[in-house]
């Protein structure tokens, strides 16, 4: 792993870094900001996650839909006593805006950053907008590292005064095409300066294990902390949708069948026949199964050498994080001293 350079014996000293360096199996979770200016939404979600993860990822206009900004939401999350992982995409900002926002994010107390390319804007709610893509996620990693370790902006200009010290994260898409290149692209991100990795959702553990085998051959797991992405399935429809329509996600048929089986008691009833109460009971049965599957996935992923933790993406279902973390035996979360022992 990259040599720690801060006075505290850490590269950055964020809670996430401390937990990972202490060899605890880390847990991060995702928090989606609201499509409004309501701070209460963030506070409510933060309360659901507090104590159940080591840091919270705050998405940046996820799927190209306008939401409260990641950094502003992050400031609220910090006030609520959680640690934030700011997500930053290259879609909406050029190198000036990105660097300016990162200086501000650090000043507001943010210490972890996930560098992303960003979903294309045509998927979102402003499909007629222009995109930026001045830089890509790899170049973003390099820029953040340059600001942190050398005190220089992308232009090469040095700045005086405190540098923004971020624990640098990057994404990996183990199942996206071309599949054979994915471990190498991960290597590129780590070479660029990524300290931790959060992967796309994993449902197919054997396929992920094959990816990790290549990752170990390239020795990447020793150069960055790899957190496997997991997420509870909510309904069989969602599982099928992810399998067929989301690039880079593999959902084995067995899991889809398990989700379907959870709805068996209500099978054969038409839309008109099924009562409100039955609908709710069925939804709860699906959810329970989805959470159970997620717990099992975490237990299996934990067995794979080189997996340093999990990143739980319970999109618009933050309530699920608590039972998942508890069920996987990952509660309570460890407390690691702020100063590393030399």
């Amino acid at each position, binding site marked *: 792993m990259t040599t720690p350079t801060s006075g505290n014996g850490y590269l950055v000293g964020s809670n996430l870094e401390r937990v990972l360096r202490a060899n605890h199996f880390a847990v991060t979770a995702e928090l989606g900001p609201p499509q409004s200016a309501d701070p209460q939404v963030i506070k409510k979600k933060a309360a659901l996650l507090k104590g159940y993860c080591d840091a919270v990822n705050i998405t940046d206009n996820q799927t190209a839909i306008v939401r409260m900004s990641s950094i502003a939401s992050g400031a609220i999350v910090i006030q609520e006593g959680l640690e934030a992982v700011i997500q930053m995409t290259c879609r909406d900002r050029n190198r000036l805006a990105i660097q300016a926002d990162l200086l501000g994010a650090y000043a507001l107390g943010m210490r972890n950053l996930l560098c992303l*390319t960003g979903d294309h804007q045509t998927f979102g709610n402003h499909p007629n907008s222009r995109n930026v*893509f001045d830089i*890509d996620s*790899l170049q973003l990693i390099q820029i953040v590292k340059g600001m942190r370790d050398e005190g220089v902006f992308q232009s090469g200009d040095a700045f005086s005064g405190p540098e923004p010290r971020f624990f640098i994260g990057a*994404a990996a898409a183990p199942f*996206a*095409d071309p599949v054979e290149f994915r471990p190498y*692209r991960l290597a590129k991100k780590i070479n*660029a300066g990524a300290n931790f990795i959060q992967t796309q959702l994993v449902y197919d553990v054997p396929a992920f294990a094959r990816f990790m085998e290549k990752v170990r051959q390239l020795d990447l797991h020793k150069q960055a902390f790899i957190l496997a992405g997991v997420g509870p399935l909510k309904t069989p429809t969602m599982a099928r949708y992810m399998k067929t329509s989301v690039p*880079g996600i593999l959902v084995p048929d067995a899991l889809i069948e398990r989700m379907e089986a959870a709805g068996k008691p209500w099978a054969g009833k038409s839309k008109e026949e099924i009562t409100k109460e039955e609908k709710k009971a069925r939804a709860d049965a699906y959810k329970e199964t989805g959470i159970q599957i997620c717990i099992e996935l975490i237990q299996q992923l934990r067995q794979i050498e080189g997996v340093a933790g999990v990143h739980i993406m319970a999109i618009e279902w933050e309530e699920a994080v608590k039972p998942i973390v508890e069920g996987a035996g990952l509660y309570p979360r460890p407390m690691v001293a702020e100063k590393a022992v030399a």
Partner: protein
Amino acid sequence: MIVADQKPLNELKSLTRGGENVLVVGCGTCVTVCFAGGAREAAITASSLRMAFKLDGNSRQVSDVTVQRQCEWEYLDQIAEQVKEADVVLSLGCGVGVQAIAEHFPETWVVPGLNTSFMGMPTEQGVWAERCAACGDCILGLTGGICPIARCSKSLLNGPCGGSEGGHCEVNPETPCAWQLIYDRLTGMGKLDVLMEIQPPKNWRAARDGGPRKIVREDLRLAKEEE
């Protein structure tokens, strides 16, 4: 070549509104090759407009002429008389042609008959695809001759992103993923090492981001003076 697409007839009618004498000007170069604004299309556009005007019950005149290249003064000189007689010129040239007419004939009202789309080539009969975005600093030497600026939806220099699936881009299943193409080509040639290099942020100043561009060739200017 420059690839363009015809505007719908209704838009042409509205653009030429108020002109009694409409002159449709085709161009004999790129837009001829992509069947958008050559002599044939100019004649068809003129007759469609005539028919439309007739149906609307008015007697506006529409004629057409095609020059070899709308983007050079000397070819425009050849149609100076016809242009002067027209109340409105409907140019079927690319955006450069339309502007050349406007600049060359300051008194003339000129409107575009095409939507200029991109620089590309025909890939099969009736299909044209984008190939170059004129970024001003060509990097095809790094990518095996496949342009990620024009052909990757995110213009990534270190692709592919996580949206690449089955060879196509996340944005549109009809669009090949440029980075899959680059990957296939470079690995096919045993050049994985080229792909492993991290490309630094691009100098976009050479592209449109640096302001309107201009090339001045002093050698050619001197040669002209010596003539």
